[in-house]
């Protein structure tokens, strides 16, 4: 607490010192940004929880929607920009630009929560569902007494990831470039964008400082207390000893929530039961046969490839043709693989080192949380000043691009691996001391296999995040100077910013990205995940 206030104080002094009177705008920017983030989060929460619960209960919906959502989550935020501009900015009578920004932030937040909700419903023990079934707990009673509390831990951890993603793409959301229009909304994100693009190194660093203050503050006052509570809602006994006493405010909110809950259950049990039954959200475990999601993946695959070929053959665009698209995809993919390898090596090392050490975790976690939230655009100035000036234009930009890509990939791996380390049962780790294994053997025979599920899960997220990050890593603007390298991310940016926006190139690019994601997921991660399933404790 004291450290945090100290940090705020120093930040405030620096802001006033460097910005003078302009610093007065910062609290205004923060509040505008904060409101947008909260609005996007609220929508994400409602959307993810309702859709997630539905999908987890409905076999058919699961088979059909899961692959679709899996692909949607990897589509870069910029791909939604045309829709945001055409339907919201130009379509909505008022607040169109605000709506567009909130929508874009929503697309970067919602998936983490959605997939966590699906996972959360799955980890509710079957016997609990049986008890609910036998006790005639249906409709809202099942929802409020079993489902919502049961998925609470996953909703909290998903929300933390969601906010991280939201901060990361805030710059894109608040500073939208479409055609020859720039839609810049007052806020922290656009402040960072403008500082970076105009080459103001000090302002950029201050922007990172403001972001860090926000992230740390929210972690301290919102997520930490909520995270403490998750232990109460876990079915396994993990973390029992950390459960803290509930404080006044939390208890007060609890009481309020309880009365709302019982009010809803009393008034709407009938209609709730009808609706939820129709969506097959009930404790029954017999839900008919699931067809293989693989089939749908194949269909989806064709649904992407065919339009892509049509686009390339029937429409002319100066920006791209089949061969250059293939070339750009190769460039982007190879950068992602390099960045992924770097990320895997360092995150594995760190996770194994600090994953089971409470003291070190406490020290490093806040740093990682801030790290995850720092947008790539905010580090443009540092990257340009250090890397590109040092290595020169060609190779320098390649290195810069890979480093920026890392900012969008590594945290997913890291957080998954740390969580994975924490869930390895203590007796398994003790085996290594009983057998007197040295460190290398211990890691090879015990830690790595035990971490495989976490590696697979983290890798899926990392590639999704990485593809998303290509748009901010292949085209760097600093001090009004452009540094770019060939790739899908660059192409997407160019397609969106020419006048008029080149929709053919834009969609070709999105389809190419989708093909990459589907292929990697289907041919690599899903297979590893299947093996890893067998390694679960």
């Amino acid at each position, binding site marked *: 607490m004291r450290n945090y206030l100290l940090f705020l104080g120093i930040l405030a002094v620096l802001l006033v010192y460097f910005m003078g009177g302009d610093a007065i705008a910062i609290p205004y920017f923060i509040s505008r940004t904060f409101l947008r983030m909260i609005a996007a989060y609220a929508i994400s929460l409602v959307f993810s929880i309702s859709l997630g619960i539905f999908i987890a209960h409905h076999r058919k919906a699961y088979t059909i929607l899961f692959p679709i959502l899996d692909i949607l989550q990897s589509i870069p935020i910029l791909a939604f920009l045309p829709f945001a501009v055409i339907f919201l900015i130009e379509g909505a009578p008022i607040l169109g630009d605000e709506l567009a920004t909130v929508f874009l932030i929503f697309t970067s937040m919602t998936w983490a929560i959605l997939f966590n909700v699906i996972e959360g419903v799955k980890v509710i*023990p079957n016997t609990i569902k*049986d*008890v609910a*079934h*036998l*006790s*005639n*707990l249906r409709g809202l009673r099942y929802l409020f*007494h079993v489902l919502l509390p049961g998925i609470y831990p996953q909703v909290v951890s998903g929300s933390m990831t969601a906010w991280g993603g939201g901060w990361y793409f805030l710059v894109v959301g608040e500073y939208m470039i479409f055609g020859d229009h720039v839609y810049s909304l007052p806020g922290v994100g656009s402040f960072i964008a403008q500082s970076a693009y105009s080459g103001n190194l000090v302002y950029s660093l201050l922007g990172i400082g403001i972001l860090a203050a926000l992230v740390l503050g929210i972690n301290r006052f919102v997520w930490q207390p909520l995270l403490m509570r998750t232990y*109460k809602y876990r079915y396994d006994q993990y973390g029992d000893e950390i459960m803290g006493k509930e404080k006044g405010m939390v208890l007060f909110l609890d009481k309020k929530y309880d009365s709302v809950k019982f009010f809803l259950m009393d008034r709407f049990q009938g209609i709730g039961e009808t609706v939820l039954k129709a969506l097959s959200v009930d404790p029954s475990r017999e839900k008919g046969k699931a067809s293989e999601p693989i089939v749908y993946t194949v269909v989806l695959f064709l649904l992407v490839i065919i339009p892509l070929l049509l686009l390339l053959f029937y429409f002319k665009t100066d920006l791209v043709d089949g061969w250059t698209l293939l070339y750009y995809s190769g460039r982007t993919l190879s950068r992602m693989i390099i960045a992924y390898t770097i990320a895997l090596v360092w995150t594995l090392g760190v996770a194994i080192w600090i994953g089971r050490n409470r003291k070190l975790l406490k020290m490093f976690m806040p740093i990682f949380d801030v790290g995850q939230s720092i947008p790539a655009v905010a580090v443009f100035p540092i990257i340009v000043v250090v890397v590109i000036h040092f290595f020169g234009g060609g190779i320098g930009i390649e290195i810069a691009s890979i480093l920026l890509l890392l900012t969008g990939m590594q945290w997913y791996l890291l957080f998954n691996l740390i969580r994975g380390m924490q869930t390895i049962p203590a007796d398994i780790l003790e085996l290594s001391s009983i057998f007197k294994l040295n460190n290398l053997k211990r890691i090879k025979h015990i830690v790595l296999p035990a971490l495989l599920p976490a590696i697979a899960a983290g890798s899926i997220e990392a590639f999704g995040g990485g593809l998303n990050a290509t748009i901010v890593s292949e085209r760097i603007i600093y001090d009004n100077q452009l540094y770019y390298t060939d790739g899908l991310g660059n192409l997407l940016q160019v397609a969106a910013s020419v006048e008029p926006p080149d929709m053919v190139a834009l969609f070709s690019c999105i389809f190419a990205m989708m093909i990459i994601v589907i292929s990697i997921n289907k041919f690599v991660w899903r297979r590893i995940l299947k093996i890893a399933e067998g390694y679960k404790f």
Partner: protein
Amino acid sequence: MVELRLKNVSKSLSIHERKIDIIKDISFSVKKRESISIVGPSGCGKTTLIRVIAGLEKPTKGKVSFKGKQITEPTPGIMMIFQSFALLPWKTVFENVELALLDKPKEEREKTALRYIDLVGLDGFEESYPRELSGGMKQRVGIARAICREPEILLLDEPFSTLDPLTANNLKNEILRLFYSKRLRPDVLITVTHSVEEAVYISDRILVMSQRPGKIIEDIKIDLPKPRDIRSKEFYEYVDKVTALIT
């Protein structure tokens, strides 16, 4: 009077496109005030059988009827006690029991829940959370939650196998006391167990199942006075007889 009747009940699952019979052609009936046990080797489908009786799973073939009516989904007359206790970690003892009564009016459910918490000897622990309780006490909560709906048939799915022997014995005796006091429901006990001694101790009849696909290979009536003397020769003759059938 026959309470429960199973006729040619089979259940198969398809796993990786292959059809696997879990239980096959199971027929038996249970009369009022009867306590039966189902024993058999691991993986013989005991739990599947008990879940079919509970209405939690539908048989692929055959019919389960309870007081003449076919069971296709859980009915209020049949409740179950689980090996894993199946308590909600965020609810107190009282709230966990109340969970089974949520379809009743508020006052009734509070009164009933407290009465049954008292009955299983958890008086004073109403506000405790499951993680603060020992295994035996957790299972008492499970028992209270099951019998507070006053089921006519109580199913027990290896209810004592995770408890220490002393606690398990105490709980067994209490369930039997409840059962034989006759003022209380349930009218029928059906226990799935790994322990042959336990089966001989608590049941009037033991159904012995075969390896998968599970069939009933013997229906043994235990003709011993109650409460049973576990040190008697006759007791061990039954134990040996059943054990020989399983191994």
